[in-house]
């Protein structure tokens, strides 16, 4: 393997053009990457297969690797006998609200901390950065008590409020705005534009890459969140999708095609998003280790 342990600059540039890539000699790295890629693909492949596998297959020994026939019974049962569409709607509401709110509030705050000079700025920003280190375990008990006092517990609001803004989002946007050259904004201000106009007309259109990163971060986090909804919501009308499919593990634990159909409903939207915007997802991952 060591013979090509390092990509030389020339290999990088010549590989870039499509047709010439075929001319490259066989790389020993395929021997590592191909099996690893297959291993990584297996769980999702199994998820789709299992959602279409008839129940009787699981009782056969040995279980067939390929379903004996494909059936949509799991999906039919899922949509016919469970409030999964309601849960999907709840999750969409939570995620859309979270993304819109994050984009608006965090970009405003990030810009303020990056560019404006005002009293309390340093203290405020220091407070924001300090909270990044506080783990959710320290927050969940008082937040639960607080939310139950103001009547948010067991409602969708309980899942939404913690996702309206985040320290990470503010930090990310501030770093981005700091990297922009200030001359454009100064020109705008000299021409008589207000700060607000400069922000919305000049700065924000330049911030699309950072906004995309923030949107993906918020989507992944809010869509997949489990521990907080688990604590805050016990009413199955206000369940998020993640909470709903987790509840199936208790009530429908033997109905595998239904469970996997639910898993497909919860995961497929994100898989599709990932395939469409892989570059932006990778960018988001580099900025954050949000998976918990």
């Amino acid at each position, binding site marked *: 393997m060591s013979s090509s342990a*390092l990509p*030389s600059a020339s290999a990088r540039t010549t590989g870039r053009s499509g047709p010439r890539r075929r001319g490259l000699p066989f790389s020993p790295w395929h021997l590592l*990457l191909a099996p690893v890629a297959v291993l990584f693909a297996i769980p999702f492949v199994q998820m789709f297969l299992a959602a279409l596998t008839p129940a009787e297959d*699981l009782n056969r020994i040995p279980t067939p690797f390929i379903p004996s026939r494909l059936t949509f019974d799991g999906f039919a049962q899922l949509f016919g006998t469970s409030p999964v569409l309601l849960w999907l709607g709840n999750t969409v509401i939570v995620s859309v609200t979270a993304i819109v709110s994050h984009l608006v509030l965090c970009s405003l705050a990030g810009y303020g901390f990056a560019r*404006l000079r005002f009293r309390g700025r340093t203290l405020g920003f220091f407070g924001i950065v300090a909270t990044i280190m506080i783990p959710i375990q320290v927050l969940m008990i008082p937040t639960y008590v607080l939310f139950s006092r103001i009547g948010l517990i067991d409602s969708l609001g309980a899942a939404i409020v913690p996702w309206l803004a985040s320290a990470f989002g503010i930090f990310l946007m501030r770093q981005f705005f700091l990297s922009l050259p200030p001359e454009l904004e100064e020109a705008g201000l000299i021409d008589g534009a207000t700060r607000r106009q400069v922000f919305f007309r000049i700065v924000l259109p330049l911030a699309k890459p950072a906004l995309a990163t923030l949107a993906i971060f918020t989507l992944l986090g809010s869509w997949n969140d489990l*521990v907080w909804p688990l604590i805050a919501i016990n009413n199955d009308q206000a369940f998020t999708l993640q909470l709903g499919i*987790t509840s199936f593990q208790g009530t429908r634990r033997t109905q595998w095609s239904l469970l996997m159909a639910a898993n497909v409903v919860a995961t497929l939207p994100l898989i599709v*998003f990932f395939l469409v915007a892989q570059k932006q997802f990778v960018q988001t*991952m580099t900025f954050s*280790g949000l998976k918990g």
Partner: protein
Amino acid sequence: MSAAPLSPAAGVGVDRRRSRRRRGLRLTLEGWAFVGPATVLVLGLSIFPAIWSFFLSLQRWDGFSEPEGVGLHNYAYALTDADLAAAVTHTVLYTALFVPSSVLLGLLLAVALNRRIRFIGLYRTAIFVPFVASAAATGILTTYLFSPQFGLLNNVLRRVGLPQQGWLEDPRQAMVVIAIMSLWGSAAFTTVIFLAALQDIPGELVEAARIDGATSRQAFWHVTVPQLAPVAVFATIWQVIQALQLFDLVYTTTRGGPLNATQTVVYYLWNAAFRQTEFGYGSAVAWTLFIVTMLITIGVVLYARRARIEAF
């Protein structure tokens, strides 16, 4: 958090100073109009509960009856709690399984993926996609793949004539299974940050080493690896923090079983707080975990400094 009041006018009210003050007030209001909403939300939902949580940790309280101040009793009890000690052991076991393998796997995959060969896009996609899988989805998949009766793994073992395993139902294997599936979902993260670091290394550095007569292996270990050290430190710290807080995947697979073998600190804490409604004790465990995590982080950073690795 509030718009800081301007300092009471010191000295005489010269016109120029007054107008400067007015300008200062306007800038302060403008600044807080930008940062206020997000700052109030973030601080209000973190600093304030964190402080409240500390006071809760000094009480015995079930959320309904009158709270009773008990001083440091909850912390003292945590030190002697055998169940918590067992949960710490399980968490340390998971951390020892997960962190080194996730950092090394990330490094290996990043080096492998950092080249232009056929199918590279396909390989990257296959390895990165699992990042979007939620804990709930991963938990259900784990239960299915590792089912002793019909799961793929035992199915393969059976066909090649190897003994069947209990996997999640075997107290000695359950944590290993959870670590493997965590790795599946999070290898993308370590891989991506190593990949970004690799692409930041100027090609001339490696070329220069090769011209000086280094083999590609020597160039890798003596030029590339030292450049990756800061990222390795960062990834290690990050993954340790994640590992110490393991909860979701335990909840969606074993619920702490079998025989409490996968009961982690956070699972224990969640159970104490939200099943037994011991809010005071739960808060004390949470604060202890927070402080231990901070100490470990500081320790790793100091160690890295001494080894002259600029991680932050």
